[in-house]
């Protein structure tokens, strides 16, 4: 089992992309973690048929 990348992460500063609850990004900033909060929205307006088409593409 190759866990090299995980052990490398343990030695680095966390740099986080946050998708979803904004409060999680806010809390990480309070801990001086660099965070980029995405303006996440359901893909294809939440239309299931379109999403599965998009995934196939």
């Amino acid at each position, binding site marked *: *089992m*190759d*866990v*090299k*990348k*995980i*052990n490398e*992460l*343990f030695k*680095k*500063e*966390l*740099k*986080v*992309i*946050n*998708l*979803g*609850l*904004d*409060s*999680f*990004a806010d*809390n*990480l900033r*309070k*801990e001086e*973690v660099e965070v*980029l*909060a*995405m*303006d*996440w*929205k*359901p*893909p294809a*307006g*939440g*239309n299931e048929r379109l*999403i599965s088409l998009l*995934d196939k593409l």
Partner: protein
Amino acid sequence: MKKIILRKNAYYDSVFLMLATQALKQAPGVREAVVAMGTEVNLALLREIGLLAGEGESARPNDLVIAVDALSGEAAEEACRIAEEILKRKRHGKGEEEYRPVSLDGALRVFPEANLAVISVPGRYAGREARKALNRGLHVMIFSDHVAVEEEVELKDLALDKGLLMMGPDCGTAILNGKPLCFANGVRRGPIGLVAASGSGLQEVCCCIDRMGGGISQAIGTGGRDLQDRRVRGRMMLMGIEALKRDPETRVMVVLSKPPAEEVAAMVLARLEQTGKPCVVHFLGRKPSASGGSIRFSANMEEAAAMAVALSKGEEYREISRSFSNAKMATVAEAEVQNMTSEQKYVRGLFAGGTLAIEALALFEQEGFKVLSNVRKEPGLALRSPHRSEGHTIVDMGDDVFTLGRPHPMIDPSLREERMAREAADPGTALLLLDVVLGYGAHEDPCGPLGETVASAKTAVAGRGGYLSVIASITGTERDFQNIAEQKKKLEAAGCLVLPSNYQAALMALHVIRKANTRWT
């Protein structure tokens, strides 16, 4: 008077929407209010409570619905005005200048050094985003639940293939490099590394370690199904163990899980034996096996912490020195039951943390009590309705049945407050057993409102000639922003007994319930 407003293409996250809903419900003259995205589930819910009409019918998952039922037209107008105000504050509060990419690729273009994606979008979309993140080389934590187990297996296989962390789905907490993620507490750094298939359990053990003077290197969450479900087969647990084995900062390991599947537990233990590092294992709901080799089994979560701290200091583990000895517990129990009526016999455990509920339940069961719970699925042990207690009852109020369309009780204490009032009205209730979880993600002052509810529940029972015992523990540390000492004071001022750990609170409750059930015979 009902008023329904639709905002096209205005997406807000679920915690924000729940808090907005709570704020509207408290507005003057409002009978019912919902602020939600137009998903199928939400529209069905709105229809059921008679709050879906007009343009609301056409809402899509990306559209915001504000629905209010108020005593008058003016009250409905005012509530909608409040809602608009809250939404406006949210938009402006984020700062217009901050760039918020709408796609992961867009995010990586401006932030190519990112190494972790934290995903808390609705469950049906979480797997899709996680797959993208893993494929772009990011470690992933999925906080969201409602992700199918097949998708979990697929994502974890992808992560294994790429050598990346895939924590979750339904991973509520983790601490990486000293940084608390999602629901997590501020803890000292040190040589103890943890991997856990249990959110509130991991928080409890981390907080106990901190209180006992120990420190944490990494705390990896795997999601609750990792060991429980044979299909997941401990994939992330095994990977976490391997990573901690190779981590020079980790000298002692702790492995924690909700009740695991037998063969998965065996596999995990076999792997632990090969690490060459001392390990403490706690599998909830299973009697500890005899410790052997480098593995020690603990009887409860507090003991797991104590064993790990002793090992990390190179000391031999001795039984935890408790501020409440058994003798003291017996004396306190005697005093607690003094003014109870002969009808008051039952424990009613109302928990926000699922694993904390399981730990209390296991203790009562070990001591021969039949306790009904929504945690149990077996006939005869499962509650007929999670909303109604029968005899001795322990409820996990973070369960889906309670949180659908409502905030988790760690965020919003009101759901548990309502239940506490109902338990106090039941003449059979002798004792309320509670947990409080502090840290990021949790309510900013949980013991403020909880203390008031404890006080009024006690007054209600005293009013009919009885006495209500209330026992709690607080999962938190001095580093948590809620200030654990202040929180404890608020509960104690209301007459609640506050014990240092969930296990000790359950043990104290056990003493009181035993006494309450034997003193009249």
